[in-house]
């Protein structure tokens, strides 16, 4: 632990800490451009020069390049260093354009700050300014190369950190140009981070372009609710519109970065560009009414139906985008009022996978994304990370940069921004593959040390897994796994078998028993699957199981709280019919969903930006999102009226839990439950451990220290291969277009992936199809047309259909389908 003195303040820092970081710990911000904690030091900008007065080094040196050492005496204010930094700014500014007023970075520009702080005010350079032409980089990022100060942060982030190869430095000397080979959309789904990482305005955010200055923004810490990872964000709003979302540093979750879906998928909260897409007002049978009228209507109707048909005729639907508060309220109301529910999932299989996964997580085995970055062996089983949880791919990329071995066992044609071994095993084969991999890594000695259950489990694991097509030797990989210290198993819950999540947990547990610091990381569907699993029990039903009761007329009222069965139920017609049989459909939501259109009574609820809310991510981390603004119809885009009024247009929305409480007419609620914290703790006992008394809980994980880890002997995997000729059609997620609420954001609409059906090239050859063909797939309830993409790197006999907005996949009738070859036609 070296001790050093910086500006007369003494500090002790861990070995390997750079002087610039040591200074930051003391609250001394040494100016910098190229240095970034996530990217490391390269010493390109020379801005962080400080004077070393005593110690192993002397003179003006770059503080980012030098490790803190014992006995160093550093001055950041020494005249020589100050003069040099001022000169660096002068050098950087000789070519910087005079365009701060029309630059979106103005007001949050590091270059602006450092220029002002260095005291440089007048350009003395007699020469002319260098200019560049800009490139079109897609709908998210604007490019203005004139402003570039050549810190190389963008290319280092883009190529080294995030692993994409289509943006980099061209030319030499003072003509270095950061751009693409040809104009076009950036390939990386993490491109938005360029905006954050660029110290000046070369890359600026297009959705927020020319709309607002930093100082006018209302900012608050928020959490991204598009995928289960719960990346930390900062919401920025102005004129009642969320203008942009920025990444918020959380070392355990997302680090400094964010994926483009999380960053740009916010405009649903503004109702899109014309503000009209969001349902702002309460409605009864489609007609706008006051908040009170709608609440009274819902309350009386529900009471009436309960009285006539009994409370069991009322069903409460929740979803995995509910806040923890809403979920707890739903759970409590169902219990106290006798309603059926709450129902969280549509697909019973998914529900069981989520539950079996969540049950197996404990603090010993669950890893955060930060811990994945330090893993040396990562097995991804049944997860398409870039499409299902993009930032997890980024975390694994960091492990890959540290030379970790990455194995992906997944039937889909996976692409990831790093080198990995892809074993395109069919879903049913994933366990087999994983099992043999793990088994191969357990030595005989280790096996002897295991207790009987572990031993039994290990012995029951399949010894061999043949993988012909990829040519990957499992035994070789097992050998590598054997020498790994910190292996991590990332397990999906989408296309895998129902037993796989628990199996993956057992495998991780087994690796743990063999002395490794093994970790387990689930990819769950939706932002709050974890808490929905905590709030459900063995009797909890899914919507598919509830539906027959509606059809039989046993259920008369449905309360859908931020829940849209149309979003992921595969038989649209049946759903339509069933909902029309209801006496009452109360919908609480902020998205313009299909269900909202059918609502008898509609109550607008608040988005994550408009209320204080809590979310639990897939590793059990409780995170609080603060209210960014009060919300309402944005002023943006049109002249605000010249009237004086005392209400906010479109300001009727309320947090869903509050609306629920009001329509339940449960006045006694407040007597037994005083605070939201107590409400949550009453429903989820594990919250007691985190300390429910203080609400909001800003940091903490609500997973037990030790779960009841039981090794379940793996079942013999089903006979390989399907005898009948045909394809197994599975639904998959795709980035930007598959998730509520971001799929409703019009900012993302232009980047929705093209509707594509994925097929193995061998299968396609057999069917006489080729890459890029338009095909018509005849589903149970009708045909859909979409593009075909073929790949060698996927399992044979499978078709993958993206469950994305705009594709009418809800003609499937079931969650998966068997498609005979003749039902796929080229058109």
């Amino acid at each position: 632990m070296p001790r050093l003195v910086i500006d007369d303040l003494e500090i002790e820092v861990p070995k390997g800490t750079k002087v610039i970081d040591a200074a930051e710990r003391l609250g001394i911000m040494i100016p910098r451009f190229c240095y970034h904690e996530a990217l490391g030091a390269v010493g390109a900008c020379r801005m962080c020069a400080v004077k070393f007065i005593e110690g192993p080094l002397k003179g003006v040196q770059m503080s980012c390049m030098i490790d803190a050492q014992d006995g160093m005496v550093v001055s950041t204010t020494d005249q020589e260093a100050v003069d040099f930094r001022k000169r660096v700014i002068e050098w950087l500014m000789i070519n910087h354009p005079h365009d701060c007023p029309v630059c979106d970075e103005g007001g949050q520009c590091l270059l602006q700050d450092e220029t002002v702080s260095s005291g440089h005010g007048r350009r003395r350079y007699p020469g002319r300014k260098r200019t560049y032409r800009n490139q079109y980089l897609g709908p998210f990022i604007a490019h203005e190369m004139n402003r570039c100060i050549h810190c190389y942060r963008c290319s280092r982030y883009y190529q080294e950190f995030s692993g994409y190869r289509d943006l980099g430095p061209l030319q030499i000397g003072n003509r270095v140009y950061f751009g693409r080979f040809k104009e076009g959309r950036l390939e990386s789904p993490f491109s938005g981070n360029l905006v954050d990482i660029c110290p000046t305005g070369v890359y600026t955010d297009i959705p927020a372009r020319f709309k607002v200055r930093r100082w006018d923004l209302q900012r608050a810490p928020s959490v991204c609710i598009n995928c289960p990872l719960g990346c930390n964000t900062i919401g920025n709003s102005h004129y009642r519109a969320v203008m942009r979302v920025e990444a918020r540093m959380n070392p355990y979750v997302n680090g400094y970065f964010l994926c483009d879906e999380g960053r740009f998928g916010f405009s649903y909260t503004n109702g899109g560009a014309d503000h009209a897409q969001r349902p702002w007002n309460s409605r009864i049978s489609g007609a706008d009414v006051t908040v009170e009228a709608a609440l009274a209507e819902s309350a009386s109707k529900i009471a009436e139906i309960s009285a006539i048909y009994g409370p069991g005729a009322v069903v409460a639907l929740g979803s995995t985008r509910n806040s923890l508060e809403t979920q707890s309220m739903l759970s409590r109301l169902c219990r106290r009022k006798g309603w059926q529910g709450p129902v969280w999932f549509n697909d019973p299989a998914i529900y069981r996978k989520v539950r079996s996964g969540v049950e197996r997580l404990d603090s010993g085995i669950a890893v955060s994304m930060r811990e994945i970055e330090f893993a040396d062996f990562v097995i991804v089983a049944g997860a398409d990370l870039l499409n299902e949880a993009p930032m997890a791919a980024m975390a694994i990329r960091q492990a890959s940069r540290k030379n970790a071995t990455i194995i992906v066992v997944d039937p889909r044609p996976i692409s990831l921004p790093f080198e990995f071994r892809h074993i395109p095993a069919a879903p049913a084969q994933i366990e087999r593959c994983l099992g043999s991999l793990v088994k191969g890594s357990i030595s005989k000695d280790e096996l002897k040390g295991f207790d009987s259950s572990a031993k039994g489990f290990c012995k029951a694991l399949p010894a061999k897994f043949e993988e012909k097509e990829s040519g990957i030797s499992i035994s070789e990989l097992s050998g590598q796994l054997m020498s790994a210290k910190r292996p991590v198993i990332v397990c999906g819950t989408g296309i895998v078998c129902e037993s796989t999540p628990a199996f993956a947990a057992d495998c991780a547990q087994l690796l743990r028993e063999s002395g490794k610091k093994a970790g387990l990381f689930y990819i769950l569907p939706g932002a709050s699957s974890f808490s929905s699993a905590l709030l459900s029990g063995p009797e909890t039903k899914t919507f598919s199981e509830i539906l027959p009761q509606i059809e039989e007329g046993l259920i008369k009222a449905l309360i859908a709280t931020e829940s849209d069965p149309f979003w992921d139920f595969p038989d649209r017609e049946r759903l339509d019919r069933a909902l029309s049989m209801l006496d009452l459909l109360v919908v609480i939501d902020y998205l313009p969903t299909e269900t909202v259109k059918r609502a008898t009574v509609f109550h607008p609820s608040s988005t994550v930006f408009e209320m204080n809310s809590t979310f639990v991510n897939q590793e059990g981390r409780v995170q609080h999102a603060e209210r960014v603004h009060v919300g309402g119809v944005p002023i943006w885009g049109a002249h605000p009226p010249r009237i004086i009024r005392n209400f906010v247009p479109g300001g009727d929305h309320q947090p869903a839990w509050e609306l629920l409480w009001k329509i339940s007419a449960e006045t006694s609620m407040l007597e037994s439950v005083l605070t939201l914290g107590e409400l949550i703790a009453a429903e989820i006992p594990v919250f007691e451990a985190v300390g429910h008394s203080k609400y909001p809980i800003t940091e903490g994980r609500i997973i037990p220290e030790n779960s009841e880890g039981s090794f379940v002997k793996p079942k013999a995997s089903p006979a390989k291969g399907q005898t009948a000729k045909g394809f197994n059609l599975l639904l998959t997620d795709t980035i930007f277009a598959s998730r509520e609420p971001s799929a409703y954001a019009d900012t993302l609409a232009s980047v929705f992936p093209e509707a594509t059906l994925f097929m193995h090239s061998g299968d396609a050859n057999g069917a006489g199809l080729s890459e890029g063909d338009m095909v018509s797939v005849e589903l149970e309830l009708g045909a859909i047309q979409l593009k075909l993409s073929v790949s060698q790197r996927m399992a044979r006999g499978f078709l993958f259909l993206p469950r994305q907005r705009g594709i009418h996949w809800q003609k499937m009738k079931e969650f998966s389908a068997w498609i005979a070859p003749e039902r796929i036609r080229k058109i």
Partner: protein
Amino acid sequence: MAQPLVLFKNRHPNRVATLDEYRQSGGYAALERFIGGKIDPGEVVRLIDESGLRGRGGAGFPAGKKWEAVPKNAPFPRYLVANADEMEPGTFKDRILLHTDPHCVIEGMILAGYAFSATKGFFFIRPSYDSSAAIMERELEIARQSGFLGKSILGSGYSFDIVVHRSGGRYICGEATALLNAIMGKRPNPIKPPPYPTEKGLWDRPTVVNNVETLACVPHILRNGPQWFKDLSLTSKGAGTKLFCVSGKVNSPGAEELPMGTPLREIIEKHFGGMLPGSEFKACLPGGASTRFLTSEHYDVPMDFDDLKAIGNRLGTAAIMIFDQKTCLVATTHNLMKFFARESCGWCTPCREGLPYMRELLWLIENGEGKEEYIDTLRSMCKQVWNSYCALAPGAAEPVASLLEFFEDEVREHIRLKGCPFNAKAGN
């Protein structure tokens, strides 16, 4: 004392020495003795260390020390890189050497590789030396066929091969770390050590980068002993001979092999035919463009690493560029600065932005738009570019700094007259 010829022993006008000629002059004897005789590589390093051979590429780092820096237990493969990316203005010794006696370099590379058990050698050569590269490729094949190169050299079990790597042509590629990046097919930006290339160089393997001339000295030292090499020098601290390339206002510009420490006066007047008729010695750059001007007061300085260091200068590549009284040094310095500004790789700010700034100021001074304050700005920038990432910018600042030190009057004259006082401007 007769001019001792070591590297240029087999110099023939307009012809490259053949393998046979080289062998007749004692070539490959050292290779046969050390590699064929399986003498411990440590012995090679020791002998070179003792001889006091210093890098001829400009920095003057002891060659043996560099090889020793490769850890004994370092992983294989290990690489040796011969740096023939000779892009310092005024320097052309390597070209002459390669056109004189390529096998001298090849043998040197093999022995150097042997010294730290390298497995592969890269001969990194600039594109304008295409003919030299062709010669090299031809002679390498000859050496390979003669058993000096390739698998198990002379049956010793030591395998070493050399490939010629053509550069795309940039000054910065001459910098060792940038050169390694260039070989790996990355953008040739320099990388600041640590880790040193001798630990993590090409593809993170130990790599030694030596100048061609340095390598060419190796077989001769091993053959004749370190003391012989030391004695070649005229100064006590120096060692060996040095290829001096003289260009500019002398009667017979070119490259000659002279003992280390030959005084400047002797070099100009005795070996390169003296100044041109009508020219007087005004100044010279002793070691390529990135050294300081030597004025007539330094006319007798011995040209050696340490002696030049004593007067605040550097031997560099020993490429002496001579300017006469008719040459405008402001314009000359501007030309040099133009070169450096253009060749900056664009990695760090002082070099990328500072050098064009200085070039602009020199240009304005030369063209009569100069202001007195520019002198102070230039002077402070000369100091400040020393905080750049690699040595390019400090080197570039050297001519400017010495111009302001020795010829400030000339600069002020430009500003006062609002133009260049040398009406018969050379060249431009």
